């Protein structure tokens, strides 16, 4: 691990350098909150931001994106090329870095998603450590994503007078040395750095979940009537998935363009909470009830995707969804509840299930 120091007043010059070579994304203030967006004028950069309304996911998986442009007459088709320059994400908090790592897994599982990777491949990612909790709803520490992790090239940790920057990989080294803005390690900031890291650990010492058993606990709670109770507080509006850094579900629809000559096959973010998400022709809906859809999302975050990719959990605790949810439903609540689910009731249901004669292996 190589550490360098960046004085506070070098941040903007550095951002400017990156902005010249990359499409520059960072946190900026908008309408009384913060958003992660492409910013032309780097002085809008707000490294003091709390959290953003949407995660930086949209840099690589935009809310609406054209997958193919197809000539309606000839059927000739092409994938729209992304604008030439790669993307730089500047100032990504640890939860969102972990979120990007999860996205990489979901979009990287073979067959990997080409539109995503075209944007993601040469992206330069700059992390920024959190020294305080961004909002009451966040629970990054419960799922252990309050520490630096995920795909960063630089990781900034604020210390007195500037940032200690951890460099990673070839791109991180190259950009740092080409910029000429970093300073070599001194003893004082080293001490400062360790202190900050200790402080972060102390600040983020919320209740840790038993991540080892989380997914099995959750899966066991599947038949619990508690989900129905929880769904009384759910509108099934999909706000939670929309703001989630790890949700990837999408819809694909054709649009007509260019004087009815071209079709644009577009994908747009979808949500497993939306009523018709699992409905097929003929009207069968595999998750018809609000409670089934809510449960599915929690299972995806806490069990399904985690299991699929060998992780303890697929939620990064950013707290965006409980903040967005008007019923104040938090994954943390579901994760914690799953442990309380009484084994006895599970056993009882299993017996019923076997009595029904359908399954043997439960």
């Amino acid at each position: 691990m190589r550490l360098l120091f960046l004085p506070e007043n070098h941040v903007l010059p550095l951002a400017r350098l990156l902005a010249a070579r990359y499409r520059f994304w960072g946190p900026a203030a908008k309408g009384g909150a913060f958003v992660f967006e492409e910013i032309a004028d780097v002085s809008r950069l707000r490294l003091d931001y709390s959290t953003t309304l949407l995660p930086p996911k949209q840099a690589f998986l935009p809310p609406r994106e054209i997958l193919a442009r197809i000539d309606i007459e000839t059927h000739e088709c092409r994938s729209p090329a992304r604008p030439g320059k790669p993307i730089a994400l500047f100032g990504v908090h640890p939860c969102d870095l972990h979120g990007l790592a999860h996205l990489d897994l979901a979009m990287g599982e073979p067959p990997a998603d080409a539109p995503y990777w075209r944007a993601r491949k040469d992206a330069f990612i700059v992390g920024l450590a959190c020294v305080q909790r961004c909002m009451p709803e966040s629970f990054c520490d419960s799922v252990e994503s309050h520490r630096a992790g995920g795909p960063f090239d630089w990781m900034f940790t604020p210390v007195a007078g500037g940032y200690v920057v951890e460099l990673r990989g070839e791109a991180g080294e190259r950009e740092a040395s080409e910029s000429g803005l970093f300073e070599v390690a001194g003893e004082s900031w080293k001490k400062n750095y360790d202190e900050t890291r200790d402080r972060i650990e102390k600040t983020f010492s919320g209740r840790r979940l038993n991540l080892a058993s989380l997914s099995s606990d959750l899966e066991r709670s599947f038949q619990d009537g508690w989900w129905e109770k929880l769904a009384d507080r759910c509108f099934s509006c999909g706000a939670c998935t929309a703001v989630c850094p790890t949700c990837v579900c999408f819809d694909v629809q054709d649009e007509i363009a260019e004087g009815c000559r071209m079709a644009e096959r577009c994908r747009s973010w979808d949500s497993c909470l939306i009523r018709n998400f699992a409905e097929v022709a003929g009207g069968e809906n595999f998750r018809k009830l609000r409670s089934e859809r809510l449960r599915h999302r929690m299972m995806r975050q806490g069990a399904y995707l985690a299991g699929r990719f060998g992780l303890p959990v697929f939620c990064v605790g950013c707290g965006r969804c409980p903040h967005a949810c008007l019923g104040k439903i938090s994954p943390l609540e579901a994760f914690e509840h799953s442990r309380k689910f009484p084994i006895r009731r599970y056993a009882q249901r299993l017996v019923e299930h076997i009595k029904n004669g359908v399954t043997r292996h439960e």
Partner: protein
Amino acid sequence: MKKLRIAFYSFTSCEGCQLSLLECEDQILDIVGAVEIVRFREASSFKGGEFDADADVSFIEGSISTAHDEAALQTVRMRSKKIVAFGACADLGGVNAIRNRQDAEVVKERVYGKYVKWIHTSAVRPVSAVVHVDYALHGCPVDKDELARFLFGLVAGRRWAEPVAPVCFECKLRQNVCIFHKGGTCLGPIVRGGCRAICPAYGSGCDGCRGLAPDPNLPLMRRILRDHGLGPDEIGRRLDLFNASAVPDAMRRELTGRA
């Protein structure tokens, strides 16, 4: 290929939805190139009577509030292969239906004084209460991009897929600060989206012009509105702005908490 014949008709309304077609400044030339518009009185003269065009798709703007409206609508239904309820008035009854919740005689008297006898109107109804409706374009007014997509979809030979997600979903995509977090109130969680949450995006809570989303959680909405200071009457007025005749009484009770 024969061009699709499209007609626009207007009943009790502000004609804003028809105007929305002209507001598609970027697509209008493509649209009129791709279809044959056989009735569109707001911007065009036609030979023949007002309601007697044979059309593949007829867009009905406005609610039905007079015997004349009703008879004309029947004619249009007979001469059209598909009927589109075009905008909130046609789709839900819209603002016009507010008067259904007032005494009909008082309503006329308030406006026409001693001349009420010259005024012949009935209760306000959505188009679907009179004839079979094939599609609905929601909103007051309809969203012009949605309208363009709808029309292009027709040209391409595709059935319209109704937006199902509530307003909140698109509100998040638009990176709005939730109106509730700003101290206001909003019906977005129970209202059908498709408007790209334009009201919250401009700092104003949703008033439900696109009608209720399927399977809305009304008790939860009531609790949240109550916690934000809205009583049963206020919730009722809020709902009635566009949905006075669109929401069944039982659901209305569930939302307002009052009989």
